[in-house]
């Protein structure tokens, strides 16, 4: 079986002709996501408009035994939305409606393709906001955020996406509709919503998402502090954590990033003579912002912070943040391609590991820029390269591996928010034993016995094979 004209016709009947893209020039742009070097042109791209259409399409694909890759905006950086050979990509690009906002009970229900920032705008007038704020929020979808359990600067205070998802409507790999959309205080039965969040599109497709909204704080203050060295900025972060200071975000940008940002349309007015910029946000009542400021300011001073600026007006704050949010793209001025690593380290080892990553890259003759969620210990070394140069790409990947190993040896993790996808597949065994992985494989197979959903991502094939052999009845 697989994708043939009968299947395409049947899909057209369900989704309409605009919902089924089979022409090559329409499929090629889907061949990669933000991890641009991993590529595979999908056999077909489907763009359902709602849950029913998604379910109808998934039933047909189930009968035809075709592999499926869910895709939001394709901003993922770990290859989660990279198509698989012979497979079909199902995009949420036409599921863009905010379905309901319950301002009193503080939740909203959206279609999976709603862009994170659009959800924010939709609840603004109610005095509410949606906390997870990936730097890609102007483009990435809430469905993609669920897929990756995405974070963002403010997740230091508010936690990743998973803490904000109250319910889901999921279409299973068999095309059944699993409606868990009613917001509940505690899950009834197993926490399937929690399990699905961060499962990288391997358990089904979320078509509707119920999210928790929070009241907009009375005061929000953004700080920019400058440091004479990246070490000092890292140390200041560790100090803040150790002192239990409570900003809502702690971000660091190094010199190379600052330069790139200042040359881009997102100029934030970061002074270019600093070696590192720290962005902090304080929020809450006037009293709590003041109290926090009193704790934080001297801690920064100890590490030699200078040029402290504070902004409260939303336009000024937005400008300071714009530079951070566009930093990745701005780095694109330096070389045609960018590789962003995403690893977590214990926050007390921040300085040592930021150093280590820099050493690894310079040892391989690579240019690295650091722009990261320091408060969570979430590093993002950005390596610029040119994917047309295979030798350079090889060095980039080697550097990526070495950096991940270093982080894991220090008690860290492979990913804080971008997910494993294709990119870190081979590193999974560094962090988990084959038994650990086998449990994950079995859980996946409980949803998708044929492993047709986003195959070849997150779980190394070997681990899955071992599971099969260990499965009851198999022995």
């Amino acid at each position, binding site marked *: 079986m697989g994708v043939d004209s009968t299947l395409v016709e049947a899909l057209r009947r369900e989704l309409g002709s605009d919902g089924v893209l089979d022409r090559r020039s329409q499929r090629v742009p889907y061949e990669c996501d933000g991890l641009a070097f991993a590529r595979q042109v999908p056999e077909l791209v489907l763009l359902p408009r709602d849950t029913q259409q998604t379910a109808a399409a998934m039933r047909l694909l189930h009968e035809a035994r075709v592999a499926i890759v869910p895709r939001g905006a394709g*901003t993922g950086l770990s290859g989660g939305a990279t198509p698989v050979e012979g497979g079909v990509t199902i995009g949420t690009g036409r599921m863009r409606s905010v379905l309901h906002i319950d301002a009193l009970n503080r939740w909203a229900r959206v279609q999976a393709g709603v862009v994170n920032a659009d959800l924010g705008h939709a609840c603004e007038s109610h005095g509410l906001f949606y906390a997870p704020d990936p730097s890609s929020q102007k483009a990435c979808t809430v469905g993609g955020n669920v897929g990756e359990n995405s974070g963002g600067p403010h997740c230091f205070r508010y936690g990743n996406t998973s803490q904000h998802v109250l319910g889901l409507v999921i279409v299973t790999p068999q095309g059944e509709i699993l409606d868990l959309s009613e917001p509940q205080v505690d899950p009834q039965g197993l926490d399937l919503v929690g399990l699905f969040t961060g499962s990288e599109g391997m358990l089904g497709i979320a078509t509707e998402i119920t999210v928790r909204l929070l009241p907009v704080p009375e005061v929000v203050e953004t700080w920019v502090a400058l440091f004479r060295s990246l070490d000092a900025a890292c140390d200041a972060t560790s100090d803040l954590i150790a002192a239990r200071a409570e900003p809502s975000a702690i971000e660091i940008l190094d010199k190379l990033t600052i330069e790139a940002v200042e040359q881009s349309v997102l100029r934030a007015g970061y002074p270019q003579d600093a070696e590192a910029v720290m962005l902090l946000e304080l929020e809450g009542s006037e009293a709590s912002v003041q109290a926090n400021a009193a704790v934080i300011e001297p801690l920064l001073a100890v590490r030699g912070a200078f040029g402290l600026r504070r902004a409260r007006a939303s336009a000024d704050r937005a400008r300071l943040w714009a530079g951070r949010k566009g930093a990745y*793209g701005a780095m694109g001025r330096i070389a045609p391609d960018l590789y962003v690593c995403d690893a977590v380290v214990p926050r007390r080892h921040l300085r040592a590991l930021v150093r280590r990553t820099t050493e690894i890259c310079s040892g391989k003759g690579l240019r690295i820029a650091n722009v990261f969620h320091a408060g969570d210990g979430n590093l993002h070394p950005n390596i610029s390269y040119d994917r047309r140069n295979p030798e350079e790409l090889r060095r980039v990947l080697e550097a990526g591996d070495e950096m991940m190993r270093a982080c894991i040896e220090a008690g860290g993790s492979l990913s804080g928010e971008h997910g494993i996808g294709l990119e870190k597949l081979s590193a999974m065994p560094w962090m988990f034993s084959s038994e650990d992985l086998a449990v994950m494989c079995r859980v996946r197979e409980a949803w998708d016995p044929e492993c047709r959903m986003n195959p070849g991502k997150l779980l190394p094939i070997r681990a899955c094979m071992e599971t099969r052999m260990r499965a009851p009845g198999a022995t």
Partner: protein
Amino acid sequence: MDNHSLVDYAKSLDCVHCGLCLNSCPTYRITGRESSSPRGRIHLMRSVAEGAIEPDDDFAEEMDFCLLCRNCESVCPSGVRYGAMMEHTRGALEERRQRPWTARLARSIGFGILRDRMALRVTARLARLAEGTGLARLVGAPALPRHAERVLLPTHMPAEGGELARVAMLEGCVMPELLGHVQRATAQVLQRAGCTVQISPMHVCCGSLHAHNGEVKAACELARATIEAYERLTDERGNPLPLIINSAGCGSHIKEFEHLFADDETMAVRARALSGRSFDLSQFLAREPFRSRLMQRLNPKASHQGPYAWDDPCHLCHGQGVRREPRELLQAAVGDGLVPLADPESCCGSAGIYSLLRPRDSQAVLQPRIEALRASGARTLVTSNPGCQMQWEAGIRTAQLDVSVSHLAEVLERASR
């Protein structure tokens, strides 16, 4: 011809595939299709250049579908020069395109007309005739204004209340035919701001529509003629006059003339000089001493029907990066009557002659903007590009909204009487 030359490959490498531009793109928002997004189109161009796909009809269709609104450029942190890339590809495609002879003839007549004042006038008359028979409605063309409005301006209009400066004003090709009153208002506002206004008797069209639609050769010729025409308008000391432009599309094009002369350094220098002294009307009026002079005359009470909403023309905000000035002027002219319009920097679907070439897509792009207008509660929509003005008028009529559309110059003119 090899496919590589279809694409400005070097520029395409600036794109890091981050996708941050997706949601700003009107054609992506209505279709949800990656191939109809800025990143998708760049990806297609790159794929053509690298030989991964053929530049077939599907490819050309995606290139044509783009509005060239350049919203994507405004949000791209990598500084991708999308507009220039697209003009390059469209030009190259047009060169090798096998259009049926009827379509070729229609295009050459259409783009030819724009260059010829007489032909423009005749066409406008014919179009009006067609409108009388309901034909124009059928093909979705915008309504043409009353005959009386189609007047050319005198070539010399003295400043009021003492001359602060002399300026050249771009009269344009379609503007005098379709929106003569806007041209008069523009000249009057400039006069009231202390400027003596000169019109070039020899200049007709800057060629922006040609460039956007792949007619590169014609675009170059027109650019050369434009540069020459305005080099001749000088002050007593022989310095060329600043050029004031009230059409965002023309302004953005003229400011980027340089791109057209990549192989001709002397012309490029002259193009740069013209760009350096070209201003959008709002940009110029926001500068001293003209600003103060105009402000003295503004009376927020006289004017159109409030509340007002400002719609940023794409070629003003994305093309020229002008955002603050028109808002400030409008605010001064109408006081607190200004209400916010959702997504003001999003394209209305006019996009030069796009609305004529692809009426259905153009309507689909306009639709959410009409809803935003409805939600804003405005009674007068203010913009500053002739195409946008006509596009909005047609959409408002269809949606049966009680909103009138004005050029910024008209509002300033009324408020400064």
